């Protein structure tokens, strides 16, 4: 009825007339999918398909490797369910978007405090793409074409990074790792350094959970190459801000801050840099300003670096990012607070040690493979193939650790175990009992 009124106002009889400029040769009759369903049917069908998943909600989970099963305070969920946030677009119109803008500024501020970087963007897609963008940013700053990364790194990050630097033909060079101590080989970094190295990447804790003491020495040996540090934000409540040991750019995975694991997405790419470098930074940035009456206000800033203005010369192509996850991170940090965050980090360390000790008691399992101190993750050498162990644990209702073969071929017989505040004593008992029975 309404449609007819509208057609009439346009002086046409059929909606088809509005498509008359589509040549018949590219016309189609139908979309080859089933016809529509009711909301009830949709909810039932999707719920049923997903019910085949084994969840960390119902089962103990010892898996980490960049994504963690953490407790999310209910209030975080309530806050990021506010539909004024959920259903808004990127805050182009600052006057009606102060809520989102302030929340994102607060997110940037929290990450700035944790990392010591005064300039933080309002999110990248995830840690892997943030690393890729960081390498490209180093090139933008010093026009050099080599980037050093640790040999021990999540393989998704390695692969993503390679793709992100394809366009600038950057060489990704791995520096070696000491598999006895669990620390990087500083000599190897020095060997691989030359005047063509744009930046050096290091993770604290590293992919195997190790807190590498030598981190603080790296800046002094890499000369004027840029130092890019990858962080776990929870651990930063106990660890020094990377700015204090010379970081130029800090990246990381922010999922731990109030976002669920979501089968790996959406994640939250943390990205910050020294203030002097901000014009080379990728992504959306929120700045503090004032309105026409001099009141405090926020808006997106430095948009002249961005794709919609700079087009092919933009610092990055990012348009849509992970803003709502950034709000979740701000809400999470607000709720747990300074004391809560440290308590969570300490409890993770304590539980991880309990887990290590328990695992060590299983025949054939070797846990203290690395001498260096670790945060909440550690590799354990297993007497059977880790991939096989995963399946056995799963069939016994346990989500085990991450098998390392794909990431660190040298440790193909190891599984990376992670402990968060969600892991209970009885979870550990259950794990040990099952593993004890297999090996």
């Amino acid at each position, binding site marked *: 009825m309404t449609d007819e009124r509208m057609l009439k106002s346009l002086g046409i009889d059929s909606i088809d007339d509005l498509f008359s400029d589509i040549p018949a040769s590219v016309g*189609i009759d139908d979309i080859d999918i089933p016809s529509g369903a009711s909301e009830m049917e949709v909810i039932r069908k999707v719920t049923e398909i997903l019910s085949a998943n084994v969840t960390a909600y119902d089962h103990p989970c010892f898996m980490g490797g960049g994504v963690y099963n953490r407790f999310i305070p209910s209030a975080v969920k309530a806050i990021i369910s506010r539909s004024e946030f959920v259903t808004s677009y990127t805050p182009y119109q600052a*006057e009606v978007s102060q809520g989102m803008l302030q*929340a994102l500024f607060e997110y940037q501020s929290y990450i700035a405090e944790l990392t010591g970087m005064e300039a933080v963007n*309002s999110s990248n897609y*995830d840690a892997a793409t943030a690393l890729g963008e960081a390498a490209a940013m180093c090139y933008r700053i010093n026009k050099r074409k080599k980037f050093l990364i640790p040999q021990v790194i999540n393989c998704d990050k390695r692969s993503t990074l390679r793709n992100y630097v394809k366009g600038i033909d950057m060489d990704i060079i791995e520096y070696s790792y000491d598999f006895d101590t669990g620390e990087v080989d500083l000599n190897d970094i020095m060997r691989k350094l030359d005047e063509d190295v744009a930046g050096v990447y290091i993770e604290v804790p590293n992919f195997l959970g190790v807190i590498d003491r030598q981190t603080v020495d790296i800046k002094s040996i890499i000369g004027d190459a840029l130092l890019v540090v990858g962080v776990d934000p929870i651990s930063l409540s106990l660890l020094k801000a990377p700015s204090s040991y010379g970081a130029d750019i800090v990246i990381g995975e922010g999922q731990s801050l109030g976002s669920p694991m979501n089968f790996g997405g959406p994640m939250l790419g943390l990205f910050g840099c020294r203030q002097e470098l901000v014009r080379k930074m990728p992504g959306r940035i929120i700045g*503090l300003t004032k309105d026409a009456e001099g009141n405090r206000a926020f808006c997106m800033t430095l948009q002249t670096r961005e794709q919609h203005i700079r087009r092919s010369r933009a610092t990055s192509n990012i348009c*849509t990012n992970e803003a709502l996850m950034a709000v979740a991170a701000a809400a999470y940090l607000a709720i747990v607070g300074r004391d809560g965050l440290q308590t969570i980090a300490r409890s993770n360390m304590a539980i991880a040690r309990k887990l290590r000790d328990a695992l060590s008691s299983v025949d054939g399992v070797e846990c203290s493979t690395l001498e260096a101190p670790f945060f909440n993750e550690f590799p354990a050498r297993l007497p059977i193939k880790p991939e096989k162990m995963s399946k056995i644990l799963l069939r016994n209702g346990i989500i085990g650790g991450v098998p390392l073969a794909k990431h660190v071929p040298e440790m193909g017989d190891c599984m990376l175990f992670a402990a968060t505040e969600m892991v209970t004593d009885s979870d550990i008992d259950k794990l040990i009992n099952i593993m004890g029975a297999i090996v």
Partner: protein
Amino acid sequence: MSYRQARYDVELIQKMGDKGDVILPLPEDDEIPSELRRTSLDIPNLRENEVVRHYTNLSQMNFGIDNGFYPLGSCTMKYNPKYADILSSLPTVTDIHPCQDEEGVQGSLQLMYELEKSLAAISGMDAISLQPAAGAHGEFTGMLIIKAYHEGLGELRKEVIVPDTAHGTNPASAAMAGFEVVEIPSNEDGRVDLSALEAAISPRTAALMLTNPNTLGIFEKDIVKMAEIVHDAGGLLYYDGANLNAVMGRTNPGVMGFDVMHFNLHKTFATPHGGGGPGAGPVGVKAFLEPFLPAPRITLKNGTYHLTYDAKSIGKVRSFYGNFAVLVRAYAYILKCGSDGLKKVSDKAVLNSNYLCNKLVPSYDMPFKKLRKHEFVISAKRLKEERDITAMDISKRLLDYGMMAPTVYFPSLVEEALMIEPTETESIETLDQFADIMLSIMAEDPDLVKNSPYNTSVRRVDEVHAARELILSYLRLKRHLGDMQEIEEKHDVANNLMSDDYTGTE
């Protein structure tokens, strides 16, 4: 219509609660190496209800599609159905670790596998990867695939052709993948100029990036000819799927001759935009490019889903498999609409757009007077000349009436552009109301319009000031403003920013 947005004096959360940066006492067996031990942490401890009030009040100072009309051109801000919220927050979505063994994630893999099939059917492409996190990320992925394809043939093709109406992400993504961008002008009809295309095409051409209908809302009806020109020269055709909402069930990128494309699930498939993200930007390709898709692919063998890695794959463009929680929403939306529903979506989106356009033109000028699809671009140039009211002024004034502003100053070939996309989910009453307001603003006192908005949480925001001062975090503010007490008392940071003890950045 009268509108008043909430306005609260909401303190920065970093300034609330207790003021301290003390580290809790160390446990006796502390294992953190002393070189790396943190000594201060300036994060307030707050009461939970304080935090909830803080963000609830902030949310009320934010305008979403649930608050009102959102005709933001190119962004397809349609209603986001609530069943998708419920489904994407099931523990079978949220509490799944991406490294779990395949056996334990059959539900996720099935949903993704089926979503790929549906997207292929909708687009006429042969294979889909759900990995990219957003449209621009899909473009970048597509460019990497195109690069790998040409390299595989041993060809060095360094140029990507992009029309001047293209979204900024198109040239940015092509450049990120290492291509040189060749921009071609539009003709007097607002479409790609075929002779300009022919002049630009060469053995160096890797691809042409196009969205159809284009960003003016005009269908590129010479698409078959364009595809021929590009393919004959050995180049590929990339489709920016941001405008797919205009043509579902009527045509598709596959039959139009495109080889690679991305979808914006947060546009066409109604997933919410989250104040900037997350979105999802799956890529689709024709069969000959399938081996290059990002890894892993999802395959089905004997009733079980697997993650498989093809040797020719470009590898990863991010961690894991995609923005799964967004994929769940889009899957549910496609199920709900079905083939009949999706066609109706596009039909209605185009009808709404033409109806609204007809109400605004000729009061507003519209360059390239041609049939539009789901969006259209009008110009405030005459109004600017006659009454000194710019597109930006109109957009700000609209906010006073509780309407989101259209996209302004894009595409750049239209002076004083206002790009309007009403979407299919709006009623005729809303469209009429919007048109009435747009027309009445034309006649309003120019000073009133130029100083708008008035009814929003803050008055017109000074973006120049933000870019000059570059205060991007509380840490920056703290280090460079000295006495925070003073700011707290005045709660007027702006004036403090101007004070003498502040030494700007650059």
